């Protein structure tokens, strides 16, 4: 039983950070209707931004997360303005394909630039708080606990922002119908830019949160991005709530899967495969996901 609760707590913590990564991806998808294939690279950039902010600006580790989110917000905005424009002008015919190629190109660029600039070896940022919480059967390093709490706060703020503020509701309106939103005076272009910036900031925040738990490396975003894809498809493309549920589900499934499968080597090798198989099955039978909003189904 104690082993089970240990696995569950760990799965929950990791799942919440997955959810944060996926929430950014789903925000971008719901407003711009494109899948951001560079999300993992942005996540990695967030980790490094936090590391250098802590190191050279003398910020506390939590301040590093905030700095990473601000830096990635502006990077996202810049990229959107410079490169994503053709997605909503008439410049290109197949917008999906255009978006996949430019965001995938950004991944190649950033992940290799990271190897050149930061070096291929992994770095470890300082922990948020040393020590481990021991509460009966539950053993949890404070690092993970704090990361989970910050993730919950960020997810809460995102949900609140989208539901309760004017700007959030404008984003939601654009995600439901560009034309109708434009009719009531919302500038869709500005919303696209803001959504891409916010989504990038969430990716960066997630990367900064995970950095002290695992190490920083140029390829740290490769796995989380596939998991984020899986989560947004399971949870329903474009639903932030769905991505939270999907993230926690995937975190738990992976934690239990690795913990209980016999032959640990093979279990570890196939951990990611379970998620991918889940993605394949979901796409085949319910492309809109569990909480998919019907207006976001692609034609």
């Amino acid at each position: 039983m104690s082993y089970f609760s240990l696995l569950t707590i760990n799965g929950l913590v990791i799942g919440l950070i997955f959810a944060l990564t996926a929430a950014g991806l789903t925000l971008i998808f719901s407003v711009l209707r494109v899948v951001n294939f560079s999300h993992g690279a942005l996540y990695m950039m967030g980790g490094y931004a936090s590391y250098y902010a802590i190191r050279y600006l003398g910020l506390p580790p939590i301040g590093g997360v905030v700095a990473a989110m601000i830096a990635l917000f502006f990077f996202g905005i810049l990229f959107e303005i410079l490169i994503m424009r053709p997605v909503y002008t008439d410049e290109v015919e197949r917008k999906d394909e255009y978006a996949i190629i430019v965001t995938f190109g950004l991944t190649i660029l950033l992940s290799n630039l990271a190897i050149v600039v930061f070096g291929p070896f992994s770095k470890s940022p300082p922990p948020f708080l040393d020590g481990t919480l021991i509460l009966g059967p539950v053993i949890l390093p404070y690092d993970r606990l704090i990361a989970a709490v910050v993730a919950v706060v960020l997810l809460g703020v995102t949900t609140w922002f989208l539901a309760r503020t004017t700007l959030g509701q404008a984003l939601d309106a654009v995600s439901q119908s560009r034309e109708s939103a434009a009719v009531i005076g919302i500038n869709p272009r500005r919303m696209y830019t803001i959504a891409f910036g916010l989504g990038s900031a969430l990716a960066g925040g997630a990367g900064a949160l995970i950095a002290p738990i695992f190490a920083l490396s140029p390829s740290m975003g490769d796995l989380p991005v596939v998991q984020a894809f899986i989560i947004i498809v399971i949870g329903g493309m474009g639903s932030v709530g769905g991505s939270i549920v999907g993230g926690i589900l995937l975190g738990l499934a992976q934690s239990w899967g690795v913990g209980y499968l016999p032959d640990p080597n093979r279990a570890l090798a196939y951990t990611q495969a379970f998620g991918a198989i889940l993605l394949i099955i979901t796409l085949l039978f319910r492309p809109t996901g569990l909480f998919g909003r019907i207006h976001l189904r692609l034609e």
Partner: protein
Amino acid sequence: MTVTARHQGLSPSAITQAILLLVALTVPLWGGAYWIHVGALLWYYAILAASWTLLAGFAGQFSFAHLMFAALGGYASALIVLHLGMAWLPLAIVAGVVLAMVIGALIGFMVLRLSGPYLALFTLAISEVVRMILIAEESVTRGSLGLQVPRFFKGDSDIPYYYLGLGLLVAALVLMGYLLRTRTGLFLRAIREDEGATQASGVNTTRYKILVFVITSGIAAVAGIYYAHFIGILTPNMMILPEMGIIIAMSVIGGIESLPGAVVGAAIVYLLSELLRDYGEMRFVLLGLALILVQRFARNGLFSLVERPGKSRPGKRPQAQPGPTPEKSHAN
């Protein structure tokens, strides 16, 4: 506009292609062993880039699973040869290609309802699952260590491989070029432009979508088999995402709607990356940058700029821009 078949006479493009082929044929006469080896590998990439172009650029099926078919073909052929001996090579080759085509048909069938980013995600997931199986099932595939594969020809010279690869590339190009000039080619392009409308006009889009997956998977498998028996070692790394990125970059940089463009793109990307080998990862930074810039500013790739200078396709729908540009066929 994009769905007009082009009647080829002795166009400037055909002359360019003939000259390029002649140059390619003579490389072993003046290039050293190094360039022959580079060339033989280039043909592998060029076959993959061209067949991916047919799948993604012409039929609009943006797939990340293309290298998976190369790996499936290579592994099937290698395993048969390793277990039964070199005498079974012809069977091994046929088995590899057939396996890839069957799986290709299966995937084509599964993705009938998916498009755009969903298709990309689906093929990405399936490709990753296969890669994990290749890594995890060490008793069969030797995992990340890789299979030692017997080479096609005896001796150390790469010249036979160079000509074999070139021959396979030309054969693949002729086959795909022919396909694109038939009605099937028109239907594929029509599916890319508007699948619903194509179906409404009475075209069995299901059939053609599966067909294009089968054909391109088979060609990718041929490339994979050639690679396996040329390099002599087969690891799951041949299908990692960055490798797929290279294939996509070749196709996009050359021109995603042109088969010769894909070959030119493959040559540009691969030869440049060889020349810049000393710069390490910086090459891939440039590759990513080139991918973004070409896609942003020269939608039809660099080859179209060379082929029809000043008349690169503006990328707009024709009705959105009446007047200034005369309607031309860009179907090549």
